[in-house]
């Protein structure tokens, strides 16, 4: 048995300094808890990607600017002052203003770029936690849980000796190695995940103001659905930053894999659509291509995200709410992080610090976080609509004369109100009907033709990879089964791989052996953007690269 008595000890170790980890650390430090924060990137935010809008919900007990007072002034881009959803069928587009859905329960929401946001948070976190005797360290990858007599007592890392703690906050993101080590989360079912890809596009602030008809201190959020994504379930988004645009797509991972779609091509479908010509102009300059997995909290949020001294917060716990077309993750991570800290402080006051997990679970329930993440209404109505025979009938009816008549009968006003209803959006089933069929019909029946010449030529995948910054370490993903049958899906689903592209992570190969031919998959982790898609869709042994290694996002 390993002797653990000599190991360093901190009251709390927070793994990851995204919004969840930062909130936990700040709330712990505010309560004088000695807190060590370990971040694997060269800088907080260098491993993080969001769409990204960050929300402050009126109903939430904690918002990010409660914990970090100058947050909006220092760390965000533009506030979203107008919101639209565009239903697209070919070049027919029906646009609805969904600002009321967006503003529902929302104190404010701002566009963010994660490198800027998280690195600013990390500086504050370091200052705050250093006061407690802890602090923040970058380039340290926590790679597992330290156990004593089978019980979690701390963490192990690639760079440091093991560290013991009374509380371990796993805020290590969507591909949390700690959640997996504890057996709390798995990477098995593609239908529990979305995959997002994004392009950050450089644009002069004055061009943004002119092209969107806004002024300084104002911003737009646009969502896109319909037939522009080859039938894959999901949608697109466009947000205005200070001097760039974030344009991306988010798809159900199971739909991406079923359709064998190439994520970067679906993104290009959006970028080159005539509707975007008015905003992109003819000087398209892509700053960064990025990707991430997004847990679907309706299915993946762990109802009891803790074990021994370990608590999971944010993406690591699947706390990512898809409310119809609006995705809320960072705000829930902040609330969860702060509630985990609160739970530890309460538990410590009762002289039972190791009861923090149970208290955290209770707080998530009492504060209404779990209900937002796994709404009861979805569990009944949404799930029912997803049952295969029902979804097929619904889809067929929507696309029939009756469905089309219905759309016309309702008209744009009522449809806009329906799209703006949080209740409707919460029960939206994960089928083709709401993502593809209905938006397409709406566009066909009510839309107007967009007659614009979109001149954007998105970069090829090898240029997108070539523009990213990497510090290549040892291979961090191992292909366990390299047969095409087991792992071939990764060739298309991986956002930095594609059929007939030799420079990506995954390639399929036909290898001739003694009279027969085998269809195999090969892997090169060098271009990996660490999204975790292949961990779900292929048979791999998946780990993060060591501290400071791998991709380094400059925008995020």
């Amino acid at each position, binding site marked *: 048995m390993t002797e653990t008595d000599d190991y*360093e000890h901190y009251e709390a170790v927070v793994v990851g300094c995204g919004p969840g980890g930062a909130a936990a650390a700040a709330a712990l430090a505010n309560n004088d808890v000695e807190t060590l924060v*370990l971040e694997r990137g060269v800088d907080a935010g260098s491993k993080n990607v969001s769409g990204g809008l960050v929300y402050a919900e009126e109903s939430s007990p904690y918002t990010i600017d409660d914990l970090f007072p100058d947050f909006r002034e220092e760390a965000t881009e533009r506030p979203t002052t107008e919101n639209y959803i565009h239903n697209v069928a070919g070049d027919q587009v029906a646009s609805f203003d969904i600002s009321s859905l967006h503003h529902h329960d929302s104190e404010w929401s701002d566009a963010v770029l994660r490198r800027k946001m998280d690195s600013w948070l990390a500086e504050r976190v370091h200052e705050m936690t*250093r006061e407690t005797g*802890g*602090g923040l360290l970058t380039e340290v990858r926590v790679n597992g849980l330290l156990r004593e007599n089978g019980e979690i007592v701390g963490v192990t890392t690639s760079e*440091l000796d093991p560290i013991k703690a009374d509380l371990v906050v796993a805020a290590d993101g969507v591909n949390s190695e700690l959640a997996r080590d504890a057996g709390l989360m798995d990477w098995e079912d593609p239908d529990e995940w979305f995959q997002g890809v994004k392009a950050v596009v450089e644009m002069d602030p004055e061009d943004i103001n002119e092209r969107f008809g806004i002024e300084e201190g104002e911003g737009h959020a646009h969502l896109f659905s319909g037939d522009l994504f080859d039938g894959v379930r999901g949608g697109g988004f466009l947000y205005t930053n200070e001097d760039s645009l974030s344009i991306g797509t988010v798809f159900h991972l199971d739909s991406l894999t079923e359709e064998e779609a190439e994520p970067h091509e679906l993104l290009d479908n959006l970028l080159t659509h005539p509707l975007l010509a008015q905003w992109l102009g003819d000087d398209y300059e892509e700053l960064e291509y990025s990707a991430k997995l997004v847990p679907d909290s309706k299915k993946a949020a762990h109802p009891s995200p803790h074990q021994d001294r370990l608590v999971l917060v944010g993406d690591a716990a699947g706390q990512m709410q898809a409310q119809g077309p609006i995705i809320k993750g960072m705000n829930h991570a902040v609330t969860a992080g702060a509630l985990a800290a609160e739970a530890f402080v309460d538990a410590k006051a009762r002289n039972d610090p190791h009861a923090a997990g149970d208290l955290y679970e209770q707080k998530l329930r009492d504060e209404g976080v779990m209900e937002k993440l796994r709404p009861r209404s979805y569990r009944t109505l949404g799930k029912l609509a997803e049952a295969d025979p029902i979804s097929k009938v619904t889809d067929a009816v929507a696309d029939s004369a009756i469905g089309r008549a219905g759309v016309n009968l309702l008209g744009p006003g009522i449809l806009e109100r329906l799209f703006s209803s949080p209740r409707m959006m919460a029960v939206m089933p994960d089928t083709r009907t709401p993502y593809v069929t209905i938006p397409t019909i709406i566009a066909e029946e009510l839309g107007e033709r967009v007659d614009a010449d979109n001149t954007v030529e998105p970069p090829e995948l090898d240029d997108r990879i070539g523009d990213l910054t990497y510090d290549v370490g040892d291979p961090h993903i191992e292909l366990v089964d390299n047969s095409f049958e087991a792992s071939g899906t990764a060739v298309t689903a991986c956002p930095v791989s594609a059929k007939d592209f030799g420079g990506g992570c995954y390639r399929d190969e036909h290898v001739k052996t003694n009279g027969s031919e085998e269809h195999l998959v090969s892997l090169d982790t060098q271009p990996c953007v660490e999204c975790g898609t292949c961990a779900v869709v292929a048979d791999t042994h998946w780990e993060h690269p060591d501290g400071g290694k791998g991709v380094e996002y400059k925008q995020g």
Partner: protein
Amino acid sequence: MRTVVLTKGVPDFREGQVSFDEDGHLERGKTPTVMNPNDKQALRAAFQTKVRHGGTVSLMSMGPPGYKEVLEEGMRDVYADDLYLFSDREMGAADTWATAMTIATGIEHLGEEPDLIVAGFKTADGETGHTGPQTNWCFDINENLADRPLITHVIAMDVDEEAGTVRAKRLVEGDVSEIETVEADLPAFVVTDGEFESSYRTASQRLTYKDLREETQARADDIDLEEDVTVWNHEDLNLDPDFIGLDGSPTIVSGVDPIPKAPSEREAQVVEPGDEEGMNDVLEAVTPYAGGD
């Protein structure tokens, strides 16, 4: 723990920085002076001792007044609590022996015997590797400081304050390179190898490292080179001009041969893009190498 680190300013030999004239002579005026890269390893070893055990790191050099910037570079890029420069005309044109004598006397002049003296393995310009070990030798000659063990080619080290010892790994190169672990009593003289690597395996060490790095950078940003570098001349050190500088240097340079330029191994042939036949030849020539074969 008091640690003294020795450094020298050398021409910046990195591509794009260094200038040579037509005869292949170094143009000192056009080439910036930087801290000898190997000495940064020495300073890193001293900094590691500071992070782990506290104390003071003094960075020291002998040379013209412009070397104050070299000391500042050490403070900014690695760490230093205080900076010392031994400088005047009498010290000029010294060989390694006269330099060692000056530095040894300067260290004695500190008034507090250092627990550790660390030098880097040879300078990028002189390449002798003599000055460090000779400085230690001069202590014995002067007999002002205690005889101290010399450990060279150090790639990893740590001190045990309680036991009053330093433990080091040495890279011993031969037909087969070996790593030797040695232990010596403090005070000791250490020469780091170019392969020296700092190691910080605990979070508290890394946090202290981060604090001290921020602190030393802030000090370097605010530095007043006139005020903040202690400059001693030969009179301050009570050194006889006959034993330092050019007069105190037994080395006689009989001549300097420029290093001939290495002949190019490749022959280039220019093909204009408009020259169709020439381009076809190029295509034929490169085709066999296409596809990564």
